[in-house]
C-alpha cells in the first residue's frame, strides 16, 4: 500500500503545463542589471513625464535600503537582481490603429492562450488588455467603453493621457515604502492596466487583463490601478501564463484598487504562471502586493483568486475598510503540487464603523508542496461594530505535502465580532473508490472532489472564468492520487 502511494505520488509530475511554449518574436530589451541608469532608460523608453521618473528614483533609493522579507513559510533561493532584464518589449510598430497591425506571431500567441483579441470573436463580452513581457499589446473594446466614460487602457497610456488621475491615486494604497517587492516594482514597473469607472456607471462587461511573460531572463513588473468613483461598479479579471524555462523568473506586481462612496469592485485572478517542472526546476517567483481601499462610505471590494501556478507565491490581497459600512471579501483557492510553495492569504484592516469582512481560503496541497494561509484581521480602536468571518480549509492529497494556517488577530475595539473556523481534510481513498465504482475515473474523481471543495470560491468567479478555473484545478492536480 505505502509503496503504491509512493509510486503514485512520484507520478504526480505528468500534469503537463499547456502554456509552456515560447513565441519567436523579436524583442526590444535593455541589458541585464539594476541601477539608476536602467531606471532612467525605462522611463525614457516610455517617454514618461518628469514626475514619474522622480517617483521611480525615490522608490529605487528606498529599495536599496531594504531587505528581502523572510517571515513567510517559504524557501526562497537568493535572487540576483543584477541578473535580470528589467525591460523587454515585443518589437512592433509604434502606434497600433487596428488589429491588422499587430504582429501575427503575437496574435497567434494570445490565440493559443485562448484569448482572442479580435473583437468580433469576443462573444462573451469581455474587454481584454493583453500584456506581453513589459508592455501592453492590445486593448479591446476601448471605444465602447469610452462612450460610457470608462477608461480601460495600459498603464503607460494612462500616464500619458490621464496624468492627473494617475498622480492622484498611484501609490496611495500601496506606497513604494510598503515592502521590498513593492519598492522594486515602483522603481522598475513597465506596464499594466489602468481602469477608471466614472460616477454612477455600472461597467457593462468584464474587464480583463492577460499577462504573459515571454522573453528569457526577464522579470515582469506590472502595475494595475483601478479607481471606481461614487456609485459605480466593475468586475475585473486577471489571467497569467509564462513559457516553461529552466531558470526561475521573477514577477513582482502591484495592484491598487480604490472604491469611492457606494462603489463596488470585484477583482478576480486566475494565476497560472509556470510552476516549474516535477523536480522543482524553473518556474515563476510570484511576489505580488495587492491591496484595495474601501475609501468611501458603503463601498465594497472583493478579491477572488484561483492560484495554481508559480514555483513560489507570496501574495496577500488585502483590504482597508476605511469608509463606514464598507464591505470586503477575500475568496481564495490555492493549489500547490510537486515542489511548489505558496504563502498566501489576506489582511483585513477595519478602520470605519460597521465594517464587515469575509475570508474564505481553500488550500489544496499535493506532491511535495507546501501551502500556507497567512491572514491578519485588525480592528482599529474607532472601528465600532466591525465583523469578520474567516474560514480556512486545507485539503491534502498524499502525505508528503504540507498545509499550514497562520491567523493573526489584532482587535482594539470591544464591539467587534470576529469568528474563525479552520479544517484540514484529506481526499480519502474511499471517496475516490466510491466515484470509481460509479464509472468515474480517478482523475475525474479528483477533479470533482476538488471542485466540490472549492465551490464556494469558484462560484464567486464570473461564469466564463469559473469553467476555466475548474479545468485548471483538475489539470494542475493530474496524477497526484491513484
Amino acid at each position, binding site marked *: *500500500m505505502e509503496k*503504491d502511494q509512493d509510486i503514485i505520488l512520484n507520478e504526480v509530475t505528468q500534469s503537463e503545463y499547456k502554456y509552456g511554449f515560447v513565441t519567436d518574436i523579436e524583442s526590444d530589451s535593455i541589458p541585464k542589471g539594476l541601477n539608476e541608469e536602467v531606471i532612467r532608460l525605462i522611463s525614457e523608453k516610455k517617454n514618461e513625464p518628469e514626475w514619474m521618473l522622480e517617483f521611480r528614483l525615490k522608490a529605487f533609493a528606498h529599495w536599496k535600503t531594504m531587505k528581502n522579507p523572510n517571515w513567510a513559510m517559504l524557501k526562497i533561493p537568493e535572487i540576483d537582481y543584477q541578473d535580470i532584464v528589467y525591460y523587454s518589449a515585443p518589437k512592433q510598430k509604434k502606434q497600433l490603429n487596428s488589429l491588422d497591425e499587430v504582429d501575427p506571431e503575437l496574435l497567434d500567441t494570445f490565440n493559443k492562450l485562448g484569448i482572442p483579441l479580435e473583437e468580433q470573436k469576443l462573444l462573451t463580452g469581455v474587454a481584454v488588455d493583453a500584456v506581453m513581457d513589459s508592455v501592453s499589446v492590445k486593448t479591446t473594446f476601448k471605444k465602447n467603453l469610452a462612450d460610457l466614460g470608462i477608461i480601460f487602457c495600459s498603464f503607460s497610456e494612462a500616464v500619458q493621457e490621464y496624468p492627473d488621475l494617475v498622480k492622484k491615486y498611484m501609490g496611495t494604497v500601496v506606497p513604494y515604502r510598503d515592502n521590498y517587492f513593492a519598492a522594486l516594482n515602483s522603481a522598475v514597473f513597465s506596464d499594466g492596466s489602468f481602469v477608471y469607472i466614472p460616477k454612477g456607471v455600472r461597467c457593462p462587461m468584464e474587464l480583463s487583463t492577460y499577462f504573459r511573460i515571454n522573453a528569457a531572463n526577464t522579470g515582469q513588473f506590472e502595475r494595475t490601478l483601478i479607481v471606481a468613483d461614487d456609485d459605480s461598479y466593475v468586475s475585473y479579471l486577471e489571467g497569467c501564463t509564462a513559457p516553461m524555462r529552466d531558470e526561475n523568473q521573477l514577477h513582482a506586481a502591484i495592484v491598487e484598487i480604490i472604491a469611492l462612496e457606494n462603489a463596488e469592485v470585484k477583482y478576480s485572478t486566475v494565476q497560472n504562471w509556470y510552476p516549474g517542472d516535477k523536480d522543482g526546476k524553473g518556474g515563476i517567483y510570484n511576489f505580488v502586493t495587492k491591496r484595495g481601499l474601501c475609501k468611501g462610505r458603503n463601498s465594497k471590494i472583493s478579491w477572488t483568486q484561483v492560484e495554481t501556478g508559480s514555483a513560489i507565491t507570496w501574495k496577500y490581497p488585502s483590504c482597508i475598510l476605511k469608509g463606514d459600512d464598507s464591505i470586503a471579501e477575500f475568496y481564495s483557492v490555492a493549489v500547490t503540487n510537486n515542489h511548489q510553495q505558496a504563502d498566501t492569504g489576506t489582511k483585513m484592516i477595519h478602520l470605519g464603523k460597521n465594517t464587515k469582512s469575509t475570508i474564505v481560503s481553500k488550500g489544496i496541497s499535493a506532491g511535495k508542496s507546501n501551502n500556507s494561509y497567512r491572514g491578519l484581521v485588525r480592528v482599529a480602536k474607532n472601528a465600532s461594530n466591525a465583523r469578520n468571518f474567516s474560514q480556512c480549509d486545507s485539503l491534502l492529497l498524499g502525505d508528503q505535502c504540507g498545509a499550514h494556517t497562520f491567523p493573526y488577530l489584532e482587535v482594539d475595539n470591544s464591539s467587534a465580532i470576529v469568528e474563525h473556523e479552520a479544517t484540514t481534510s484529506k481526499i*480519502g*481513498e*474511499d*471517496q475516490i*473508490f*466510491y*466515484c*470509481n*465504482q*460509479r*464509472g*468515474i*475515473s*480517478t482523475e*475525474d474523481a479528483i477533479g*470533482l*472532489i476538488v*471542485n*466540490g*471543495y*472549492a*465551490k464556494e470560491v469558484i462560484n464567486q468567479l464570473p461564469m466564463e472564468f469559473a469553467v476555466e478555473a475548474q479545468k485548471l484545478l483538475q489539470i494542475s492536480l493530474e496524477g497526484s492520487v491513484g
Partner: protein
Amino acid sequence: MLSIKDLHASIQGKEILRGLSLEVKAGEVHAIMGPNGSGKSTLASVLTGRDLFEVTHGEITFEGQDIGEWAPEDRARAGIFLGFQYPIEIPGVSMTNFMRTALNETRKAQNLEPLSSKEFLQRMREKKELVEIDSKLTNRSVNEGFSGGEKKRNEIFQMAMLEPKLAILDETDSGLDIDALRIVANGVNRLKTPENATIVITHYQRLLDYIIPDFVHVLYEGRIVMSAGKELALELEEKGYDWIKKQVDNPLITL
C-alpha cells in the same frame, strides 16, 4: 453472467476470502448471508476491484471476460454496481453533477452519446419517482449529512439511474425503516429484467420477503459453505448460524 472460481483474497497479509466460488446467471437473484466478519463486504469489494484487497488466487469472469485485472471504473462501466454498506460522503459535489458524470462516463465506454441536459433531467425525474426519493436529497451534495436510511435509499436511486447488469447490494436493508424497506425492495424488483442479476447481502430474512431470491448462500470464514433455495433464509432466521459453524469447524461430525 458472473463466475467466481476458488477466489482467495487478503488484506495486509490476512486472508479473508479463502476459496470462494459462485455462479450467477442473468435473471437470477442471489442472497448472501453469513455472520459478521465472514467476508461478505470483502467479496463485494473484490468483485468491484478495490485495491485495498489483494487477490492471491482464483478467477472472476464477467460476461465471459476475465475482469481480475480491470480497474474499478472499467468494471463499473461494464455494468457492475455496488450498493455500499456504508455509502461515502463527498462534500460540495452535487448529486446531479455526480450522477451526470457517472452516467456519461458509462455511456462513453459503451460508445453512446452523452445524454442531453433534458434527457438527463427526465431520467432523474423518472428514477426519483421509482425509488420515491425526495428532490431535497438529490439536490444536495453526495450523501453529505444524509441519515443512514437516506444514504441507503440514495444507493438504490443511483442503481436505478445507472441500470447495471449486475447489482451487488451490501446490507441495503440495514438502517431502513419498514416503509423505506418496502420502497427500496419494490425499486429493486421493478428494475429486475431477464437480462440483469442481483446479489443481495443481508442479515435479515425480512428483506427476502420482498426480494425473492432464487438462491441463498451462507458465507463463513471466506467460503460459501451452504447454498439452497429461499427456504434456507427462514431456517437461518430461526436457528442462527451455530449449526452451520459447527458443521464447518468439525467436518467429521455430520448432522
